[in-house]
Each structure stands twice: as structure tokens, then as C-alpha cells.
């Protein structure tokens, strides 16, 4: 379990994350939603130790991340941020292989190769694995980076807007993979996501942030209500039930 205990982080005088506490359930998909500037990405960065909080603690399986060795953390938790432009000449397979670094420290073993193959298969990148990253479309690149985090074989996978710049087909494909990772392999997945319908359909829990504070948290059914969403986004949405899934209609 990931326990976030009263985390605060401010830039200058502005508190970006303000005394946030939240527990993330194991083997579930938890989505962080909220308007721009709500502190979602910052919170994710703090949980994944890319940034340090001003105050508060993050515990992973009961261990404070500040007191855990970075290399050990890399076997427990993987983070993928939104912008991933690389000027390196790297093939998809090379990139995915980097996911094994915490284990092999650069010298790939047979076991590593198995994990790499698996991750490539999982993201359906077999045909692309020898292509160079600069020859790929945005969606393919994103899938390659996600494959790297899968190869890292961590219990916790954190993704910062994984659907950014993707069309519906690839977005659905990625969310389905995440679902499979949670359901079949028991991975715990945290995502920051903008499209609330993707959050509603594919996640188990939703944490809604606003102005650096948690506005609401709970299961999908508890959060995807007109009332809660109005509090979070400040706009009226009607919630329709289609095929047992709650869909927000926010085009007014």
C-alpha cells in the first residue's frame, strides 16, 4: 500500500500540494483527476520521489521512501512522466531494456530478456521493436515508454497523463493494458488523467484534487456524480449510464 501522509509542497508562496493525505489500495487502478494546476502531477512526482515534499511522508509498504535506497525503490515503483522526447538514437527494444537497469545494472541476463520480450508483447510492439524511437508516432512512442515501465516489473506503476496526445483507439488500448496489469498481475496503478470518462470507465478509485487539496476520494460510483464533479470542476455535468458505465456529458 502507498500511504501519503500530510504532504505539502509550495513554490514560493503558492502551495501546490496542501496537506494531502491519501491511501492507495493495492492491485487497483487509482485515477487522480482535477482541473489544471490542481497539483496532480506534483503529487505524483512526490509519491515517486522525483520531487521531495516540504513536509509530510510517503510510505510504500510501510517504508518511508526518504529512507529507502533509490535502487531498491526502482524495483518497487515505476514512474512515467508526460514529456519524453529523447534525442538519443535508441531502438524500441533498447528503451524497454533500460527498464531492467535496477536489476541488472546494465548487464542484461537471460532472465532480463524474458521480461523485455514479455513487456514488448504486452504493449504489442513486436513488429516495432527494432525501429528507432525517432521513427515512431506519438502513440507508438508512448507505448514503448510504458513497455519500459512494465519491464521494470514493479508492484506500483505511476503514469502522468499516459493518454496525452493519443487517439481514442490507442487510449483505449493503453487503458485496457493497465486494467490487465491490475487484474491479472496484481499491479497497483496510479494515473493522472484528464479525460474523466476514461477515469470513470477504467479505474477502481478516483481521487479528485482541487487547488492542491483533496476535494473528494472514493470509488468510481461515489465520485462520478454531478454534485461532486461540480465541486471539483465548477461546471455542470450530466451523468448518463450507458452499458453500466457512467459517462459524463459536459458539452453544454
Amino acid at each position, binding site marked *: 500500500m502507498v500511504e501519503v501522509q500530510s504532504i505539502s509542497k509550495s513554490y514560493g508562496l503558492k502551495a501546490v500540494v496542501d496537506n494531502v493525505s491519501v491511501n492507495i489500495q493495492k492491485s487497483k487502478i487509482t485515477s487522480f483527476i482535477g482541473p489544471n494546476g490542481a497539483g496532480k502531477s506534483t503529487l505524483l512526482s512526490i509519491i*515517486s*520521489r*522525483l*520531487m*521531495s515534499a516540504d513536509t509530510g511522508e510517503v510510505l510504500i509498504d510501510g517504508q518511508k521512501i526518504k529512507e529507502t535506497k*533509490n*535502487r*531498491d*525503490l*526502482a*524495483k518497487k515503483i*515505476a*514512474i*512515467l*512522466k508526460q514529456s*519524453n522526447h*529523447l*534525442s*538519443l*538514437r*535508441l531502438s524500441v527494444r*533498447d528503451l524497454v531494456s*533500460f*527498464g531492467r*537497469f*535496477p536489476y541488472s*545494472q*546494465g548487464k542484461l541476463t537471460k532472465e532480463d530478456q524474458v521480461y523485455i520480450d514479455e513487456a514488448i508483447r504486452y504493449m504489442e510492439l513486436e513488429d516495432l521493436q527494432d525501429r528507432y524511437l525517432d521513427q515512431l508516432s506519438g502513440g507508438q512512442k508512448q507505448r514503448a515508454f510504458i513497455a519500459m*515501465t512494465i519491464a*521494470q516489473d514493479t508492484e506500483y506503476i505511476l503514469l502522468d497523463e499516459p493518454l496525452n496526445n493519443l487517439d481514442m483507439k490507442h487510449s483505449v488500448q493503453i487503458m485496457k493494458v493497465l486494467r490487465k496489469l491490475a487484474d491479472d498481475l496484481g499491479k497497483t496503478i496510479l494515473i493522472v488523467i484528464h479525460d474523466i470518462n476514461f477515469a470513470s470507465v477504467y479505474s477502481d478509485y478516483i481521487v479528485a484534487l482541487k487547488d492542491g487539496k483533496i476535494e473528494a476520494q472514493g470509488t468510481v460510483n461515489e465520485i462520478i456524480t454531478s454534485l461532486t464533479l461540480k465541486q471539483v470542476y465548477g461546471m455542470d455535468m450530466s451523468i448518463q449510464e450507458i452499458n453500466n458505465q457512467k459517462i459524463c456529458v459536459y458539452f453544454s
Partner: protein
Amino acid sequence: MREKSKLIILIVLAAAFIAGYMFIELGPNWDYALPRRAEKIAAICLTGTVIAVATLLFQTVTNNRILTPSIIGLDSLYMLVQTTLVFFLGSTSLTVMNKQVNFAISIGFMVVFALILYRLLFRREGQSIYFLLLLGLIFGTFFGSFTSFMQVLIDPNEFQIIQDRMFASFNNIQTEVLIMAAIITAAALLYLMKFVKYLDVLSLGKETAINLGVDYDYTVKRLLVIISILISVATALVGPITFLGLLVVNVAYEMFKTYKHSVLIFASALVSVVALAGGQILVEHVFTFSTQLSVIINFVGGVYFIYLLLRESKK
């Protein structure tokens, strides 16, 4: 293995140029000429390797392929130290003073300065590496202006002595300090071995590196110290010559088209030795000392730099 065969070609080429330098027009007094030539070519190889490795590391740490470590102002600091010595002690200090002492002073100042700069950078967590570059740039300009200020004040004859030091020259390498330089370089490279495995990961950027379990601040700090030691050695040996690094590292990248630093380190060092040894043969036997190797390097390097900029802007 295409990488291996390319490396072998480079090794053969480097060996051929070194041999060429040693034996072309050796003349009858070979017992006098050979040891001197050997000393010089050793210094050239050492400088080439040091510059290439330092630049490669610097570009990896900054994730930028058109930067050279000269941006943190070490070259200018070297000139400032030399000028200050002449300013206060007179030009005889440079000629009379024990070369080893001068070398030690220069390196000492450069490394201490680099350490202070890094202390400033890493005092606050999460500071961008570009902050370091900016600081270095400002300090470099400051050192440069201060140097010119002192140079205008001193006796023109004394200025001539400094001028000698202002341009990298392979014709008057400080061979007296060669052994000392070699030992320092060996120590720095040995220490670098510990971090080589992290370099590939670092080139993926800060966030990915942390994600993959690299202690980013710790590693980058140590790498920067190694870089400044290497640059200091090269500068004290032949003068400001970091432009060479930009040239050879990019040639190595183009030749090998790889991200693997285990290959790139050797490749760029070899390219560097080939360029310097070949260039020095040109200078001595084709131009018969009418020009300097550093002039050729800066010319070729400058053209290549503009080409790089144009190509990057097209992307």
C-alpha cells in the same frame, strides 16, 4: 560486430598516425629526436583522451550535444590564474617558477572553483543543471574581463609571455608536468569506472534516471568533479582547447550511432587522438609550423558547430 570493427579501424588509424609522427623525417640524429617526439606525442594522446572523455561526460550529464565543458568557465579561470601570477610576480615567475608548481596551482584553482560552483548548485534540491551552466557562464565572463583588465595594466613584454599561454599550443606542451598529468588523469578515469554503468541511463534524462534507481545528485556531482579535473589537466597541459571535445564527441556519435557509453568513451578518445596526431603531422610536415594545430581545430570545429546548429534547427 560492426562496432568492434569500427573501433579496430580507429585504433589502427591512431597507431599509424602516432607511428607516422614518430618516424617521418626522423633524420640521422634519431637518438635525440625520438625521445622528444615520444614525449610530445604522449602529451597529445593524453590531452586528446582527456578532452574527449570530459566532453562526452558533460554532454551526457547536461543531455545536450552542442555544449562543451568550457561553458562552466574553467578555461577563463586558467587564464586568470596565469595572468595573476604574471601580474603580481612578473613574467619570470612563469619561466623561472617550477613548472610542476604552476601546474599544481592551476589545477588546484580550477578544481576548487568547480567544487564551489557545484556546492552552490546542489545546496538546494531540485535545481536545474542549466542553472549551473548559467552561473558558470557568468563566472567565465567575469574571469575573462578581469583577465583583460590585468593584461592591459601590465608591461607589454610581460603580456607577450601570457599571450603564449592564451592559445592552446601543441608545439610548446608542458612536457615537464606530463607524468603528474598522467597520474591525475589515471586516477580520475579509475574513479570514473565506478560510474560508467550509470551513463547510459543518465542520457535518458533526470527523471528517467531517478526512476531507474540512479542516485542522481550523488552521481552527477561526482561526474562533474571528474569532468573538471580532466578539463583542468588538459588546459594546464596545452591551454584552452575544449572546442576539440565538441568536434570529436560528435564525430564519435555520428560514426557509431549508438547510445552505449562503454563504446562511446573509447570511440571519442580514439577519434580525438587520430585528429590531434594527424593534425600535428600536418602542422609539422605540410605547413612546416606556419600555423598552429589549435587554429586548424578551431576552424574545423567552428564549421562543424555551425553545421550542427543548422541541422538541429531543421528538426
